[in-house]
């Protein structure tokens, strides 16, 4: 079966150089930041794909490329077999675009304060000239707010309620895929639980597919069917949720899982992770994780490991077995 989303050898490079005159005077070269490097994965319909990684690992960049907010430098993203950046037929592009929606991290910044909630929610339909009668009221009730809220403004709502409004807006165009970029990071734990439960329910009711981007391992574990772990723009490991959390194969995944706090209050015996994410402008040679890896051998410092299949996992490590 063809996956709903397939990402093939995706690269995205940002030019972070100073202006040319400064470069000339200070004798600097161009500085290129590779935010996403050689990432390939697929998301089958009606599943949740979790992307985890620390800051600077490229997870949000991948999300933006998939919804079409950023163009890839090379490689492609196909949604239902259509590459939005190469497809010429406008009708097809428009149809696919209405199948994709996004939920952002900050529910305060992603709602227009001058619009009424009802108008915000139906914008994805009205901008395409669709029929919006009664849609907002129905969606508001589906996300656990009341139909009366349609005439209010965003400032009258709390953070959790705003995120519900964002979810209602994302659902308005009846999308197949919703890209959720840290949807609960700005929320308190008890509100986060409400929003996560709502998202799970809606997924079943509407038959949605989620790309769930988060730095929070516990949230990703709760929501995802398959999890991909990013490090410095590269996919270092991918596996079904339980396989990944119970038996991580890449040393970075192992380190990340050990570093995550446990609730049982047990005294940590594992080593504390060393170092921090290196500078993405000058990534280390060989495997990008080698400077922090406790197992690194000579080969890791010279040769970039391919993502290879290993049981249920896909791992980019020379030593994993």
């Amino acid at each position: 079966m063809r996956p709903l989303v397939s990402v093939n050898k995706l690269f995205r490079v940002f030019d972070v150089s100073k202006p040319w005159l400064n470069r000339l005077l200070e004798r600097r070269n161009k500085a290129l930041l590779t935010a996403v490097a050689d990432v390939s994965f697929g998301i089958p319909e009606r599943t949740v794909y979790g992307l985890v990684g620390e800051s600077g690992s490229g997870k949000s960049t991948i999300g933006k490329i998939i919804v079409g907010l950023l163009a890839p430098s090379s490689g492609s993203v196909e949604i239902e077999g259509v590459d939005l950046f190469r497809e010429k037929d406008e009708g097809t592009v428009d149809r696919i675009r209405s199948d994709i929606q996004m939920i952002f991290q900050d529910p305060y910044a992603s709602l227009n304060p001058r619009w009424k909630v009802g108008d915000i929610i139906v914008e994805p339909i009205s901008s395409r000239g669709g029929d919006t009668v009664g849609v907002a009221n129905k969606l508001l009730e589906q996300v656990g707010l009341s139909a009366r809220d349609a005439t209010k403004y965003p400032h009258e709502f709390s953070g959790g309620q705003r995120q519900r409004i964002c979810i209602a807006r994302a659902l308005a165009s009846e999308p197949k895929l919703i890209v959720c970029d840290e949807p609960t990071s700005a929320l308190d734990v008890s509100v986060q639980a409400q929003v996560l439960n709502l998202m799970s329910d809606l997924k079943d009711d509407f038959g949605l597919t989620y790309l769930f981007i988060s730095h929070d391992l516990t949230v990703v574990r709760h929501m995802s069917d398959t999890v991909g772990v990013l490090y410095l723009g590269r996919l270092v490991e991918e596996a079904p949720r339980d396989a990944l959390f119970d038996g991580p194969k890449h040393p970075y995944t192992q380190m990340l899982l050990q570093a995550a706090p446990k609730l049982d209050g047990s005294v940590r015996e594992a080593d504390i992770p060393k170092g921090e994410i290196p500078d993405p402008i000058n990534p280390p040679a060989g495997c990008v994780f080698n400077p922090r890896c406790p197992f690194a051998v000579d080969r890791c410092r010279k040769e970039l490991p391919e993502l290879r299949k290993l049981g249920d996992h896909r791992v980019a490590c020379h030593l994993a077995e």
Partner: protein
Amino acid sequence: MVEPVLSVRGLTVEIPTRHSVLRPVDTVSFDIAAGEILGVVGESGAGKSMTGNAVIGLLDRPAHIAGGEIWLNGERIDQLKGDALRQVRGKHIGMVFQDPLTSLNPLLTIGQQLVETIQVHLDVSGAEAKNRAVNSLNEVGIPAAAERIDAYPHQFSGGMRQRVVIALALCAEPSLIIADEPTTALDVSVQAQIIALLKRLCHERGTAVMLITHDMGVIAEAADRVAVMYAGRMAELGPAREVLTKPAHPYTVGLMGSTPLASAGKERLNQIEGSMPRLDELQPGCAFSPRCPYAQHKCRIEPRPTLEAHEGRAACWLAGEVAE
């Protein structure tokens, strides 16, 4: 019993507004012993940062301490003003804030900032102060401290910057550190490093720590005891392991149920309905009663039980029954 380093009794902070008087902190009592880490946990608006700021005397007007006592090493500090307060702040109480970039001066090298802090609080020569600065940077795990001391804050990464802030807080050898969300802006792997560092330094030096956070995971990793706050009041206070594994207050029960970590593998999280009431909309009776699944008539009308520093664990009429 050993005299606690910090002892807070019935602390109340009030903010007068045009319509009413808000109480972001309401009769809060707790102790922190030397070498102990007290985790203060709660959702945004629960009053945890306000409590920390009240202790170090950093309340912004019109917020002010309206009642209660704060004792540091047997000395009452809540009524200090001006110079006397400045003596306590920094020398006896160190502070670590959430965002390491905004708590360092971008125009001064970290060495200048450390030396300044040391010389304000300790009577030492410039050379000696610099020596101490290098030592404290070494201690917080900054590699090549002697060279890095002349670097500016922007030349450090987030985790390293937070280490510098911790070095700053510790350099005058205070007896209490208030760490307000010290790891919230950091990545998981760096967070683990910073927590381990805080724990090690406090146990070695016998510094008391008030660790303010919203993250139950951080509490589980670091805290010896934990205080759970809700709507400005103390909901539960007890040894960390007990509070996390056998919560007694219905709010703590709900908070633990909402944490994906605690309910790994479950299809749904046990959510608490509703959200924390605004301070001007507090009901008489227990503040949590509108959201509490166990609430009875008594909870809605009788003034809620106050939690004393030593007796009892949960400020709840039904504490014993809920735990079952």
